[in-house]
């Protein structure tokens, strides 16, 4: 493999292409690895956190070697889509004979390899990621190198310790391979610049900076003063601060708390989604469901909707998805960073056009772009359109939740309760419990639609839900969707994520609503001048000629 060209200390093109190649692997048009697995693999690689999963992978090789003639490749590449259930099926079909050299015990949750010197357990839910890691290994180190180590491991006496030795060898090889492809000096410098600037800013107050100090004003002040080329664009400055907040919160949580519960994203393997609302009884004994506003901020609902089986339902189109990503990127910090997000959406686009014009050698074109920032000019688009657009997105999400509720209730799926409660916050679920449909949801649709059984509030909601379903013309909402198992599974998987998404959008809308249209327009006019002057300074084009 050739050496990857490094640009500005960034990850190499070869590494980027390698990861893209893994993401592109598909079977009959469906990606082999889900977005969550691809994301997790990316995290393992760039975070250099591959040592523990490499150990699991080496133990998994013992299981994969149950294939005829010990051809472990059949497990890693012979199973079409990388899903927990598929690997469970593969393992069940190749259970070793009693008295095998390395006994492998399997149950509903995973496998345990029983060595003379210890046991090692791997859950089925973990296997898709381990298979993706194997794909990474053969792509980076080459199949011959991986095969050599795997064969040596499998040919040796079965010992748990041997897997550890092979994992260490592989870990060293991956480290060596990654070093030229993944320089960290550049990123460390970016962090140091941000931390240094914030520290200096708050030193006169005699205190350290906090995540709360990173707000719209500080992001803009930093960008206006930044001399480092890596913070030349406003977007890069904002991204740096968002990453810093995330890193500080992550570090604080990691240092403070070791989570007791095993959490995961693989519902098929029985893992628990941390943000999935669950039914519980309140102090009065009434059954209710934990609302979306009560759940942790730790999940990404947009990612959940892109995962199979939820991705079979077109709950969001590409534009809606991109706009939601933009509005929600700052997560819970969105309230104090909403203006920064809008600045990036509006002026980041202008900066990209100036930069592109200059790259093409068109100084006059760049100046024309700058001229378009003059007050009163139609471009750039303002901040106020985002208010209207966020209202439309909220209305769409409500329609989608209603339509999904209709389908899930008809299909007798308990996941409908997530949507029921999100759409009708004060709904008393006691009638549903008394009708027995929380335990046996087959009659859920019939009970909800009948005011004498489910109550008038639920019946009215179900009427709206039916109308929304009939009015939504998208893939996954066809008239016969309730009888198509893949679509029902898709709606069921999306049901916990939709209320979280709606709650987050509501938070972003509240931030947008803190200013009236006139105040947003005034802010835009002020920002035009500030950004135009800074662009003129960065790109050496004259603002006096373009701005009055």
């Amino acid at each position, binding site marked *: 493999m050739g050496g990857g060209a490094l640009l500005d200390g960034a990850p190499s093109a070869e590494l980027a292409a390698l990861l893209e190649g893994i993401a592109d692997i598909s079977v009959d048009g469906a990606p082999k690895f889900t977005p969550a697995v691809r994301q997790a693999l990316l995290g393992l690689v760039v975070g250099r956190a591959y040592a523990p999963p490499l150990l699991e992978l080496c133990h998994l090789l013992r299981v994969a070697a149950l294939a005829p003639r010990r051809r472990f490749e059949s497990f890693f590449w012979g199973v079409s889509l990388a899903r927990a259930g598929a690997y469970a099926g593969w393992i069940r079909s190749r259970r070793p004979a009693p008295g095998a050299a390395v006994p492998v015990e399997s149950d509903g949750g995973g496998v345990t390899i029983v060595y003379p010197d210890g046991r090692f357990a791997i859950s089925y839910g973990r296997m898709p990621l381990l298979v993706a890691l194997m794909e990474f290994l053969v792509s980076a180190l080459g199949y011959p190198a991986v095969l050599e180590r795997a064969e040596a491991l499998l040919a040796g006496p079965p010992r748990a310790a041997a897997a550890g030795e092979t994992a260490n060898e592989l870990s060293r090889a991956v480290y060596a391979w990654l070093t030229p492809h993944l320089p960290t000096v550049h990123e460390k410098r970016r962090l140091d610049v941000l931390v240094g600037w914030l520290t200096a800013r708050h030193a006169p107050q005699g205190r350290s900076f906090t995540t709360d100090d990173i707000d719209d004003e500080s992001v803009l002040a930093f960008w206006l003063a930044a001399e480092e080329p890596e913070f030349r664009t406003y977007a890069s400055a904002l991204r740096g601060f968002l990453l810093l907040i*995330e890193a500080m919160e992550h570090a604080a949580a990691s240092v403070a708390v070791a989570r007791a519960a095993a959490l995961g994203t693989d519902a098929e393997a029985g893992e628990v989604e941390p943000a999935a609302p669950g039914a519980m009884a309140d102090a009065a004994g009434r059954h209710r469901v934990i609302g979306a506003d009560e759940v942790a901020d730790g999940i990404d609902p947009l990612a959940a909707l892109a995962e199979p089986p939820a991705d079979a339902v077109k709950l969001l189109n590409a534009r809606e998805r991109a706009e939601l990503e933009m509005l929600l990127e700052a997560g819970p910090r969105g309230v104090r960073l909403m203006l920064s997000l809008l600045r990036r959406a509006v002026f980041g686009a202008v900066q990209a056009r100036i930069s592109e014009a200059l790259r093409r050698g068109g100084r006059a074109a760049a100046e024309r772009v700058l001229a378009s920032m003059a007050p009163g000019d139609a471009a750039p688009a303002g901040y106020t359109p985002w208010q209207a657009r966020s209202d439309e997105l909220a209305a769409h999400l409500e329609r989608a939740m209603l339509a999904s509720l209709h389908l899930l209730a008809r299909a007798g799926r308990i996941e409908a309760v997530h949507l029921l409660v999100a759409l009708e916050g004060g709904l008393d679920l006691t009638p549903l419990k008394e009708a027995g449909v929380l335990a046996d949801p087959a009659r859920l649709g019939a009970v909800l639609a009948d005011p004498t059984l489910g109550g008038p509030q639920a019946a009215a909601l179900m009427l709206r839900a039916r109308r929304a379903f009939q009015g939504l013309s998208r893939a996954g909402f066809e008239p016969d969707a309730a009888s198509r198992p893949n679509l029902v599974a898709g709606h069921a998987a999306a049901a916990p994520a939709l209320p979280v998404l709606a709650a987050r959008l509501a938070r972003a809308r509240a931030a947008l609503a803190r200013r009236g249209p006139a105040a947003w327009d005034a802010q835009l006019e002020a920002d035009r001048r500030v950004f135009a002057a800074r662009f003129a300074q960065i790109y050496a084009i004259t603002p006096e000629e373009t701005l009055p």
Partner: protein
Amino acid sequence: MSVAWSDLGAEGQRHAEAHFIAASLAAGLRERERSSEPRPSFADLYAWATDPAHRLAPAQQAMVASDPDLRRGLALLVGRVGQLRAVAAAAASSGGLDRREGPGFTVRLTASRADAAQTYVSIDIDPESWRADSPPAALLVLRSGLPVAKLALPDEPGFALQLIEPTDSDIVRGLRDAGTDLVLV
């Protein structure tokens, strides 16, 4: 949750640094445009070697041809998944071979009397030599480790197979070529 930088302490700050670097690199990788044609993944090579219906795209074949690592990987893989192999034969007459033989199997090529544009490909496999659980699925033809052609075998049990293929097809020309290796998978 408000977090003060100083409250993190040295350990927390190291943790934050590691997280920032990883998240920043990941963001950089996500935003990076692909700068070159994708190489065939190992999954592509495995599929070619084991799935009778899988074809490598011409660009992928070219990359295998030009990348020694991929060639070596494919050669090793074919060696592992293949059950029976006939190696390149000695040079034959100018018309090419009409019979290929390896330990445990024979391939015969017979021009159709009714239609010269068609050739019968007869494969006889010694059941004693076949160690896999399932019947043979495909006959791979390689030249110096590079994929030349692949013949999907009928999806039915049997060790005496006969198929008819166009005389000018890659598979018939590959089988007649004394310089190719044949591998039954």
